[in-house]
């Protein structure tokens, strides 16, 4: 590139999406909406500790309004697609931005979680696909009983491999959120030096809460607290 950009793209939305910054803003918004869902999902899951009647009633409740259920599903699907399309495009961009790598490179200012966003993300995606086939559609769950959500959860998590894979995915989700929940503020331009330490602490806090909330279910099943 040797000349200076003067012409700007015609359409504002296209112009934003065209830039790496615009894609990051889309990732931040979609990531935040996915986080809200994940938080709600985690809180809902905790009702498994209140026994089969309560847990199945809750699951039933979510299905009383099919239009509402599908509206939420479609919004989440759009968010996942936007988040992933941006992630893939940026991952390709990152490779072309440095065609010749360093012989030696030492990270000195970043966290492990932040450096592995492009790994944790795709593994979380693989987990989401598995998770839907396991507990929503039941295709991968040999003991699946349509409508008996409590039974299905126990049937799945009684297998230590399923529980281990679940817990592993939650570790990665916690890493993803530990960096992402702070990073999204900078991507949207909502940071100020005074609040950065608090934002980072809040991101770590929510990542840990989500992690503990989710893994309490397989651990409950494996230890026999939930049966």
């Amino acid at each position, binding site marked *: 590139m040797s000349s*200076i950009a003067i012409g700007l793209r015609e359409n504002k939305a296209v112009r934003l999406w065209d830039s790496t910054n615009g894609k990051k803003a889309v990732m931040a918004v979609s990531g935040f909406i996915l986080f809200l869902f994940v938080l709600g999902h985690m809180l809902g899951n905790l009702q498994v500790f209140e026994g089969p009647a309560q847990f199945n009633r809750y699951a039933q409740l979510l299905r009383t309004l099919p239009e509402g259920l599908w509206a939420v599903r479609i919004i989440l699907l759009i968010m996942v697609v936007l988040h992933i399309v941006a992630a893939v495009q940026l991952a390709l961009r990152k490779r072309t931005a440095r065609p010749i790598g360093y012989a030696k490179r030492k990270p000195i200012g970043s966290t492990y979680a*932040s450096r592995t966003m492009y790994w944790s993300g795709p593994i979380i995606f693989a987990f989401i696909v598995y998770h839907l086939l396991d507990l929503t559609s039941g295709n991968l769950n040999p003991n699946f009983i349509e409508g008996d959500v409590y039974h299905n959860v126990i049937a799945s998590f009684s297998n230590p491999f399923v529980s281990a894979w679940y817990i592993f995915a939650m570790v990665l989700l916690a890493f993803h959120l530990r960096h992402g929940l702070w990073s999204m503020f900078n991507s949207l331009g909502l940071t100020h030096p005074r609040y950065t330490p608090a934002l980072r602490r809040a991101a770590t806090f929510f990542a840990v809460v989500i992690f503990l909330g989710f893994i309490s279910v397989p651990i409950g099943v494996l230890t026999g607290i939930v049966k």
Partner: protein
Amino acid sequence: MRLILRIWRQKNRNTKGKFARYEVNDVNPDMSMLECLDVLNEDLARRGKEPVAFEHDCREGICGSCGFMINGVAHGPLSGTTVCQLTMRHFKDGEELILEPWRARAFPLVKDLAVDRNAFDRIIAAGGYISISTGSAPDGNAIPVSKERADAAMDAAQCIGCGACVAACPNASASLFTGAKITHLGLLPQGQPERDLRAVRMVTQMNLEQFGQCTNIGECVAVCPKLIPIEVIGRMNHDYIAGSMREPEAGEA
């Protein structure tokens, strides 16, 4: 003291480069890294060999000309320092140092440790200015600026454009540099008229130059010789997003 330098040697962009190993025996601990290379180069020249090319000018950490990777860290191990200000006493006698040029598609190699950073100049030219009437100097304090804003603007204005942020970023992003420029002009009253357009144009130029995206991981901040804070990137994103919404679309203006 004695040092072993493994330096990237490459004649020009079209030839293949490789590391060459040099022993420098008479290093004074009070020398800067660049002076250490001067000693090596004098020796190479005496022996009729090609000296190592590197950029430098002020040698006091204010011009932004110098810079290369030392053992995988831009500007070397000392925080808040350029290589011209990095003294050899920070290394151990007999230590081996790997010197590599900044690596980014947007910074094509010139020779050895020198790279072409004109991409930064083009980002500045795209919008890093303010329009004011020149002529006689304005009265002092005619334009009030709060202390907090002035401080933040001056912190950002410290950027010397050395390129270490790009070099250290795993994505070769120029966000800390561009963010610093947008922040220092955008925080002051004189910078307000062009604030939207400036952010849109500088960010557009930054992306056209093939720098990578920002992941907000903070490697840039850790190597910045002027310790520019990461929030300048947030400010750039804010002004860019807001400016993109407000600036007329092409054809509308």
